[in-house]
Structures are given as C-alpha cells and as structure tokens.
C-alpha cells in the first residue's frame, strides 16, 4: 500500500530524483569509522547537526511553558524545572546541549582546519560554516538572558557594555540590542524574539546552504 501511495505522489511530483539527491550517494572509506577508528573525527559535523536538532526540539517544548516578560520569566522557568513532568530533563537538555553544540562545532571546525578541507573548491562552504559558528554564539548569548536570574541579567549587562565600546556605532548597537537604554523588559522580549525566530531562521538557511554545498562537492579526499 505504501508503494502505491508513493507511486501516486511520485507520478505527480516526481520526488524520486529529489530523494536520490539527498540520500543516494556513496561514502568513501577514509571517513568511515567502521574501517578506520580514527575516522570518528569525521563524525563531529553530523553530531553537531544531531545536537542542533535536539536543541530545536527541546526549545519547542520549552516555549510551551516559558513566558517572556520580566515578572513571569523567572517563575515560568522555575515552574517548568520543578513542577512540569520531565521539565528538568527538557530544560537540562537545552541548557547542556547549548554547550555541547559549541563543543561539537569547535571539534568539527578543527577537523576541517587541520585536514585542510577548506581549500579550493570548498572555500565558500568554510565561510558559511564560520557564519554558522557566529550564529550559534549569538544563540548562546541571547538564550543566556531568558531565565532572567541574576547570572543572566548581569552577564547580559556585561555583554551590552562590550557592545557599547565599539567605536562610533557602539551606542547604537547597544540600544538596538537592549531596546532602550537599560537592560529591562524590552531587552527580554527582544532577546526572546532573536533567540526563537530570527537566529534559528538564519541558522536553518545557512545549514541548508552548508549541506547543499557538501552534497554538491562531495567530501574532501583522503590526505
């Protein structure tokens, strides 16, 4: 039955070539940890994506309880951590996953760097990868404020002061980020929007470009 359903869709949309493009390709021996254990270093990119998917899923569940305003933000986090079933696990995964995704991405970057895989013709993919790195740091920075505890508040204040020290445009960046002259209610809603809508949108676009390029160019050859 599934076959006939698939055929029905395929007749109209011709999805087989698309599926071929995504899934049907060979993986060479030198990146396969089943053949060479040391090839596990080639897994870091995939693991980064895996953790990113976990971040998106856990984040979606967190927004079911989180309230982005300065009165309720802290207590909604407190509630979901202590009262909601498995809330401590979901928030724990999002909290520690944020660190883990940075670690994995860092290791992936080092692997690509030290195997010289960024060289022609893969320059653009490296640049996109670095942009993903910066977006991830941005997600880390904006996400840190959301629980609205002292650690979040004062770390953000320090971050704002650093942004404010940029010559000429510093005060504008600061005001744009904070949504005013102080870290307050506007900052929290702004950071929430950036963390949940703006940066994930940018991230998914960049990831699509990253994967499109690796698929088009194939993985770099053995050293």
């Amino acid at each position, binding site marked *: 039955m599934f076959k006939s359903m698939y055929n029905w869709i395929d007749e109209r949309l011709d999805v087989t070539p698309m599926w071929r493009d995504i899934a049907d390709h060979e*993986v060479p*021996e030198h990146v396969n940890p089943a053949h060479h254990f040391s090839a596990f270093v080639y897994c870091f990119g995939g693991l980064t994506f895996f953790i990113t998917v976990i971040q998106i899923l856990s984040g979606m569940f967190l927004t079911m309880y989180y309230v982005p305003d300065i009165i309720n933000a802290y207590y909604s986090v407190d509630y979901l*951590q*202590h009262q909601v079933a498995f809330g401590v696990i979901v928030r724990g995964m*999002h909290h520690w996953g944020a*660190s883990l995704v940075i670690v994995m991405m860092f290791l992936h970057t080092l692997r690509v760097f030290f195997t010289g895989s960024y060289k022609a013709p893969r320059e653009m993919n490296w640049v996109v990868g670095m942009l993903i790195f910066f977006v991830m740091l941005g997600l880390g920075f904006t996400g*840190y404020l959301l629980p609205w505890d002292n650690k979040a508040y004062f770390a953000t204040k320090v971050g704002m002061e650093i942004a404010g020290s940029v010559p000429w445009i510093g005060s504008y960046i600061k005001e744009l980020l904070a949504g005013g002259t102080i870290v307050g209610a506007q900052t929290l809603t702004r950071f929430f929007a950036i963390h949940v809508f703006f940066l994930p949108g940018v991230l998914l676009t960049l990831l699509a470009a990253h994967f499109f390029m690796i698929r088009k160019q194939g993985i770099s050859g053995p050293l």
Partner: protein
Amino acid sequence: MAHGHGNRSNEKVVYVGDSRIRKPGPRPAPPDYTAFPGKSEAFIPNFLLKEWMAGVVVLVGFLVLTIAEPAPLGYPADPLNGSFIPMPDWYFLFIYQLLKYPYTSEDFIVLGTIGIPGIAFGALLLVPFLDTGKERRFYRRPITSSLMIVSLIASVYLTWVSWHHYTEELEKSGVVPEHIEREEKNKESIESGKGRWIPGKEKTVALVKPDDPAFEIMKKAQCIACHGGELEGGGAPSLRGIGDTLSKDELVDTITNGRANGAMPSFKGTLSEAEIDQVATWLSEQKAEAAE
C-alpha cells in the same frame, strides 16, 4: 502515450512545467567515489547506521549529564544587587578575560573588543583565501597550523585564567553560587515540610505583637531602613518569623556585635543593653506559629 509521442508506455514521462515538451535527458548520476581507494558504501542506510552509533555514544553521555546535573537557576534578576559577580557562559570567557589586560581595556578597549578578536576571527573566516596553497596536510603548512595552535593555546589559557579568578573570588568572599544555595534551601524547605521554596514568593509571616514598644525602639534605631518599615525585608533580610531561626541569645549577639563584616552594623553604642535585650526578646517571639 497519446498524440504520437512515441510508444514507450512503461517509461515515466516528465514534462517541463505544464507544457507538452518532454524534459530533455536523464539527470546526471550522483558522483561516486570510485576515484578514492578502499571500500565506499551507501550513505543510507549503511553509513548513516555507523554514524548513528557515534551519535548514540554522545547521546548517552549527554543524557547522563542532564540527569546528574540539573540546569542551574539562581535568584530572580535584581538590578540593585551590587555584590553579584557577573559571569558569562564558559564559551565567552576567553574574550571576557581578554578585556582585563592593560592594553585591551580602559583607553585601549577598542583593541580588546574589535582589534584582536577582529583580526583572529577575520583570519579564521577568510582562511581559505589566506592559505591558498594546494597542500592539505597540517604539518606541511607550518605557518597556518602554528598560528591556529597558538590561538588555541591562548584561548584555552584565557578561559582557564578567567574561571580560576572566578572561583578564587567566590572563595575569598565566601559566596556560594546562587543556583547551589537555592537548591539547598529548596531541599531544606521540602524536608522541613514547608513545601517547595520559590525565591521572592515566600509567604510573609505576620508580625507578632506589633504594638510592642520594642518595635518603636527598632524604628528609632533605623533598623527599618534596611529591614523594611514592617520588617518585611529590603536591603537586609526580612525579620518576620526570625524567632524560628535565631534564639534570643543569638539575636542579642547579632545586634550587639553586628554580622557579615559590618553589613549588619553593631548597635553597641546606639542602644543600651536593656534596649537590646527588649528588642531581642520581642524578635525571638516572632515565630511563624505564633503569627497564625
């Protein structure tokens, strides 16, 4: 097929748009890796399964960490809290520490925020256009590799120094990080049967015998400036229900000698011993049970 477009009826016909023009040619075959030595295998499902093995190892470690160490949560943000030691997340520590050196702070802050990180991250972003040689092995690219290794060591060092300073500062000031203190208080509260403790949402205990002349003494001695006009707390802790935690002798000692390095001042000269005794007696009667 109708309209005389040939009779290969088993073959799927793909049209361009909604026109009747057949799409030309088959799609190019996906690139294979026959040029590479050794055994290549299909991405799905063979290789993906192996990558999933690595994923499972990471996932198990991740979940163990999540269960063993709940995500930290401190006290609600209080902009007036002057003693809080700010600390960014660990992956920003290297840049946080960088801004603490003489040539990267104060007058030279631009060098610290834009100069050094700008050059480092700019070079990293544009490395394919800086290191354009064909050689891929890192030991045959000494300049690129050594620059990276030096930056790595520097970042690790800066992160370590920053964390070291932080832990030292905590030790010196005797401060327990808020998320740890909070969990301990929560545990205590649950164990003593008072239920979950939520900072800022404590039930306020009513004052016992608010007409007592001892309260007037406290008002005159400016206790209320910090402890609040109704002793509900403010800059200093609430004194409602203080009798549950401190005995009369301890209260006398606190008022006479002060506490917490003078954050609570000594009232030795301001109040007479009799007055201190009167205040301490009244405060020791401030019990949650008596207030009900």
